[in-house]
């Protein structure tokens, strides 16, 4: 079904997608003329495929559950923020705070993501085929952040249990973020994520893994300068 954001109101489209008839088997939707609107496809809770033809504004696919959403363009701030499950695929670039606080599902970005990608992520898997900006993975708690390109300043600052995999250069690591050994289980997981993102020409072994040194988990006066 084709939904035209020039003819229909955003609220009507979102309501329709949030309340689909569960007895209907045709679950394919296309949204045309998104024109940078905010909150397109926010709060979807059912399995369905939504293809958005163009650029979207802030918080696209926010709080997503189960839905498979493809953006054939760029995404503004906070794409797939607080996603619980499902899949969000940005074919262009993503602005800052992509996948912020997301608990689950997969976020794939074909281009670059700007600053604070995966900030406070809580279990989502994020794969960025390009590079990420500064403060990416800030205070991230669980899940995997995979970056095929480079990372900006203060990568993984104050992170908890997230695994960050970077293939390119890192401008600087944030407080308490250190390089860690790639075990077999990490390589296996990373290969799975690369496959899921349809990345064929890069091997898991060419990435480096970063995680928490766990020095800031509990307050210690010796670490005061790091807080």
């Amino acid at each position, binding site marked *: 079904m084709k939904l035209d954001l020039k003819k229909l109101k955003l609220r009507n489209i979102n309501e329709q997608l949030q309340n689909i008839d569960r007895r209907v088997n045709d679950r394919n939707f296309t949204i045309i003329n998104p024109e*940078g*609107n905010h909150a397109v496809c926010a709060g979807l809770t059912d399995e369905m495929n939504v293809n958005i033809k163009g*650029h979207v504004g802030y918080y696209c696919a926010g709080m997503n559950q189960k839905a498979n959403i493809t953006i054939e363009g760029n995404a503004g701030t906070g794409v797939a923020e607080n996603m619980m499950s499902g899949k969000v695929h940005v074919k262009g*670039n993503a602005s800052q705070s992509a996948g912020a606080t997301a608990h689950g599902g997969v976020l794939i970005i074909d281009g670059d993501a700007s600053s604070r990608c995966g900030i406070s992520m809580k279990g989502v898997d994020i794969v960025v085929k390009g590079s990420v*900006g*500064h403060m990416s993975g800030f205070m991230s708690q669980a899940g995997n952040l995979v970056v095929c390109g480079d990372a900006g300043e203060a990568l993984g600052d104050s992170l908890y249990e997230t695994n960050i995999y970077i293939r390119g250069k890192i401008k600087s690591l944030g407080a308490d973020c250190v390089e860690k050994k790639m075990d077999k289980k990490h390589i296996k997981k990373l290969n799975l994520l690369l496959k899921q993102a349809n990345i064929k020409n890069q091997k898991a072994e060419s990435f480096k893994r970063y995680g928490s040194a766990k020095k800031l988990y509990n307050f210690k006066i010796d670490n005061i300068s790091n807080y």
Partner: protein
Amino acid sequence: MCGIVGIYLKTTKFEIDLGRMLSGMLNNMESRGPDSAGFAIYKNSNKDEYKYSLCINDLDFNKFKNDISNKIKNFTLSQHSDHVIVKTTEIPKKFIKIINKEFRDVSLVGYGRSIEIFKQVGNPKDIVKKFNLESFSGTHGIGHTRMATESAITTDGSHPYSTGEDECLVHNGSLSNHNNLRRELKKKGNTFNSENDTEVAAGYVSNSLSNNNSLKDTLMSGLKDLDGFYTFITGTRNGFAVVRDEIACKPAVIAETNNYVAIASEFQAMAHLPDVNNAKIFEPEPGVVYSWGN
């Protein structure tokens, strides 16, 4: 919050449409700044002539025409709602003195050989309509929709700020060291009409440009001297630049085609521009100055 927009034409193709392009951009940024709005349009004009943009609340056009003809000769006036553009060969030093001394109710919002500035309190959509922005042509333009945080909702608190000949600046963000900087710039001879932080940034740019620094170098040194959150768009007679502070909390998107460069706080401000879906669309990186022209 605030919304900022700008467009710089790389070719002459869209010169006739500049006002229409910019008005769509401002209209779409209403949600980011409903308190006041303004825009600057650059259009080449007669080399010997200056254009003075005046804002006159409670304008009595005939009275103003009569009053000004007693002070200067050889001028033409065009009225745009409560703004008047005075075209004359009178040099800025003399003209500004006359305005400040003899016309207490008139505020000079900008002047130069190519710039025209219009700004007023109210909803951006109303302001675009009131000044009939769609009818303007030109080479580049800059606009702003304001959500007031730093100072009062007044014409003086509205953007763009122009503190030098053919210069203007719009700002999304807030500066934390503007009081100190204002004091320093006052010592260097700059004058300010408001308590607004953005006016200080505009003054900083004017001061540096008057010392023969390029627009790019000026904004590079601004990254060190201006403390706070900002995305700035600045215009000069032939130049156009954008810069974001190094933390880059304030958004900006650039769309570049062979014919134009457009910048806005959000992509939705540019969605109506011709051929935008084939444009190169990117976010300006933190702490990097992007400039076109000179």
